[in-house]
C-alpha cells in the first residue's frame, strides 16, 4: 500500500506534536486540525496517523487517556508529555533550518 505520508514521517511527527500543544486531542481531531490549519493542503490518512501516534506514545513523547467527547462518545485523547514538549522544540528548530535551506535553494534566481 502506497503511503505518501511515509516520506514525511518526521514531518508528521512535528505536526502531531505541534497540534497537541494546544489541548489534548483524539486522532480524528488531529486529522481535522491539521487539515484546517494547513488550508486543506495536508491530508493525513489514518494509515499514517495511527502508527505515528502509536510510535510517539511508545517513544514517551505523548501519552493517551480515554475521555468523553462533547457528543458523549468515548474517544482516546492524546496529550504532550514534558519530554514531548522538548522534543517538539528540537524538531521544530530542525524543520525551520531544513525548510529555510530548501526555500533558499528553490527561490534562487
Amino acid at each position, binding site marked *: *500500500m502506497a503511503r505518501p505520508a511515509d516520506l514525511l514521517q518526521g514531518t508528521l511527527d512535528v505536526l502531531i506534536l505541534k497540534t497537541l500543544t494546544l489541548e489534548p486531542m*483524539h*486522532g*480524528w481531531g488531529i*486529522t481535522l486540525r491539521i487539515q484546517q490549519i494547513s488550508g486543506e493542503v495536508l491530508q493525513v*490518512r*489514518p*494509515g499514517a496517523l*495511527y*502508527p*505515528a*501516534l*502509536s*510510535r510517539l*506514545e*511508545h*517513544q*514517551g*513523547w505523548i*501519552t493517551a487517556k*480515554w475521555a468523553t467527547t462533547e457528543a458523549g*462518545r*468515548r*474517544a*482516546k485523547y492524546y496529550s504532550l*508529555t*514534558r*519530554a514531548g514538549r522538548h522534543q517538539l522544540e528540537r524538531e521544530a528548530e530542525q524543520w525551520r533550518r531544513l525548510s529555510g535551506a530548501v526555500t533558499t535553494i528553490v527561490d534562487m534566481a
Partner: protein
Amino acid sequence: MPTRLHHRVVAALRSFVHRDAVEHELDDELRFHLEQLEAHQVARGSARTDAPLEARRRFGGFEQVKEACRDMRTLRPLEEFLRDLRSGVRLLVRSPVFAVVSILSLALAIGANTVMFSVVDAVLLRPLPYRFPEQLAMLWTEDPTQNLREGRSAHWNVEQWRSQSQSFADMATFDAVSKTLTGADEAEQIVGASISPNLLPLLGVQPVQGRNFSTEEAEQRQRLVLISHRLWQARFGGSNDAIGATIVLDGLPSQIIGILPVGFQIARLDADVWEPHTISEDRETRNSVRGGDTWFVVGRLRPNVTFDQAQAEMSAIASRLNDQLPAADRNRGVSVVPLSRHMVGSQSRLALWMLGGAVFCVLLIAAANVASLALARSVGRAREMAVRAALGAGAGRIVRQLLTESVVLTVVSGLIGTLLAVAGIRLIRAYGPGNLARLNEVSLDLRVLGWALVISLLTGMLVGLAPAITTLRRDLRPSGEEGGRSISAGASSRRIRRALVVAEFALAIVLLVGAGLLVRSWWHVESIDAGFRPERVLAMELSSPSAFSLPAQRADLYHRVLEQIGAVPGVESAGIIGDLFIGNTREQVLTTEGDNGAVSERLRFQRDEVSADFFKALGTPLLRGRFFSVVDGPDAPRVAIINDAFARRSWPGRDPVGRRFKLGPRDADGPWYTVVGVVADMRRQGLEREPVPQMFESLAQNPPRSVDLFIRTSTDDSLAMAGALRAAVRRVEKHAPIYGVAPLEEQLGTYVAQRRFQTSLLTGFSVVALLMAAVGIYGLIQYSIATRTQEIGLRMAIGAQAGDIFRMIIAEGLTLSLTGLALGLVGAWWLGRAGSSLLFGVTATDPLTFMTVSLLLTAVAAAACYFPARRAMKVEPIVALRQA
C-alpha cells in the same frame, strides 16, 4: 512528574501485558475515527447510503492500519515471537502423529549426539589436567631393526638426553610397580608408582596436603610416599592425621608426606602410592643399564619449541649416543610423542571421530525426514500463508514464523534428547571400554548441554528452512493456485523432498558399509584362536608375602596352594604362570644352538614361569615333546617349553625338542635351557597381535613373587567358586594377598571391548539410519500418490493396468533409492580408506560388504514403496476423477 522513561515503560508493558485491552482500545479508536469520517462525509453532502462505503475507502485497510500500529510497539518482536511459539505448540498438538514421530526421531538423534559429544569432549577435546599440557611429551626409545616402537628407556639414556637437550625444560621418569600394602587385618595388593622427584613439579601438580619429596631425600633413598586421594579417603577417611603417618609397603614402613589431587594420573598410570624412583632394590644394576629399560619418560618442552624441533634435536642426540652403546645396540632412536596423543592412541581417536561423524549423520537423516514432513504440510498450509500475507505480514515475518515453529519442535526434542543423554552417559560410563583413557571423566556438564542446545537450534533451522524457502518462492498472492488441488501442487517442494530422500539414503549407505566392515572385522577377531580355551576358567592373582624371600619357600608355597585348590570339589585342573596378559614385550639378546652352531640375535621375546598343569588348565595344546613335571625341580637341569613362534623362528623346519638356547649373548653367565616341549601360540598381547617368541620355564626352578592362578572348573559359573578357592589359598597361607578374581573370558573381553564398543555403536546407528531413510521414502511415496490420485485415475481411465501403476510407483521409489545408493557407495569407498586402520582381516573395499549392503538397502527401499504402491493400484478411476 513522570519522566519520559516512565512513559515508555508504561506504554511498552501495557501493550504487552494487557494486550487484549490494548487491542480492544485500538479497535475502538479506529472505529471512532471511521464513524467520524462517515458523519463528516454526510455533512459534506454524500448520500447517507454511500457514506459508509466512501468512509471505508478513504480510511484504507482497517486490518493493515492495525498491523502497522502494532509494529510500532516497543515489545513487538517479543510479542511476535511468543505468538509464533504458541502457534507452533498448537500446530504440534493439532497433528499428534507428525509431532510424536518428529519429536521422537529428533530426540533420539539429539540424545545420541549429546552422548557422543560428551565422550569426544572428555577423551579428545578437553585439555589434560596439568599446567600447560600442550608442552608435555612422552619420550620413547625405538629401534627400527627390532620393530621396537614406544619402548621404555634406561636411566642412563634419560640423563644423557636431559643434559644435552635444549628443547626440553626438564624430563622426569616413572614406572608402575606392584606393592603389597599390609593393613591391620589383611594384606592388599595395590598399584604403586616409582617416580623421579621432579615429576610433580614438571607436570605442575601440587599435593592437596603435605608436600612432594626433594631430590636430596630421593638420593638418600628415604622411604617417603605420596598417596592417592582415593587411598587417603579409604584408609584415613580424609583426615589430616594421614600426613606423617606410616604405612607398610612390601613389609617395610614408609612415611606419608603428601596427598595427591583427586583423580591424579600420569599417562594412564593410576597408582595409590607414589615413591621415589631410587627405592627399588636393584637400583645399582638398573642405573648401569644403557639402551632400553623400564622407565617411562615424560618431558616438558621449553616455550615456543615445537614437537618437530624437539624430535629433530632428540634424533641427533640419539645418534651421538649410539656410539657409546654396545655394538648390538647402535640402532636406537628417540621418538617424541605429544602426551595427549599418547593418552588416546590414533586408533581410538579415529574410532571416536568416526562414531561422532556417524551419529551426526543420523541427526542429519532425522532432520531431513522431519523437514520432508514439514514440507508436505507446508504445501497444505499455502492458503494460510497467503492469508497472512494479505493481512500485512511481510515475507521475513512469515519465514520467522515457520522457523520458530520448527525450533519449537526441535527444542522440545532437544529437552527429551538431553534426558535420554543423561541415561546414555550413565550407560557409557558403566559399559564403555575400560581401556579407553579418560572415559571416566565423561559427564553432562555445561559444555555438553551447550552442544545439545546448539545442535537443537541448528536442527530447527534446517528443518524450518526448506518449508520457508518454498513458501517464499511461491507467490504469496491470495489466489491460492498452488494451494489448490492441482497436479503441479508443490512441485518445488517435491523436488526438495526427493533430494532429501536421496541424501538420506546416501548417508545411510555410508553408515551401513562402515558398520558392515566393522562387523566383518569383528567376526575375524572372534574367529582367531587365542591359543587357549577361556571358558569355565577362573583367574586370580596371588602375591607371596614378604616372609617368603627365598625361591624355595615360594616354590613350596605355590606347590601347596595348587594342591589345596586341586582338592576343592568342582576343580578340574589348576595352573600358575608369572603373568598371562602382557603388554609390550622387552627385547633381549638370545643365543640359540642350531645346525651351524650358536647364533646370537636381539629380538622381542617373552619369558615366563609356569607350573606343571598350567597348559592343561588353560587348554593350550602341546605340539611336540612334553609338559613339565615333578622331575623339573630346582636342582634338575634347566629345561624350557617354547611356543610355536619361537620354534618357527629359531629352528625353522626342524624339531626343536632337545636343542639348547640361553638368554643373553653367547658368553653370558646365564644357564643353557634345553627345549623339552613346544606348545601352540597363545595370543597374550591381545587377539589382534601376532604372538612374539615365548619361552616358559618350570615354576619350581624360578618362582616369581607374584603369580596368576588359573582354575578350570566344571561349572559354567566359575565365579561362584571364588569363595571356596579363596578359602583354599587361605588354608595354606593366611596373609597371602589374593586379588583380581575374575572369569578368564571376562579378562579376555577387555581386549576386544573397544572393538565391540565401536562395532555395536556403529551398527546401531546405521540400523537407525536405515529405518529413518525407509520411513522417509515411505512418506514421500505415500504423499506423492496422495497428490497424484487424479493423475492415476486418469491413467487408469485411458487404459493403464493396475500393474502399470504399481510399476510406476515402485520405479519412482527405486530411482531415488538407487541414486542415493550410488552416491553413498562412492562416499563409503572414499571414507573407508581413511578408516581402514580400524579394520581387521578385511579391506576397506570388501566387495562382499558393499554388495550385501546394496542388496539390503534396495530390499528395504522396495518394501517401503510396496505398500503405498499397492494402495495406488486400488485407486478407482471414477472416484479419483470426481475429486477433480
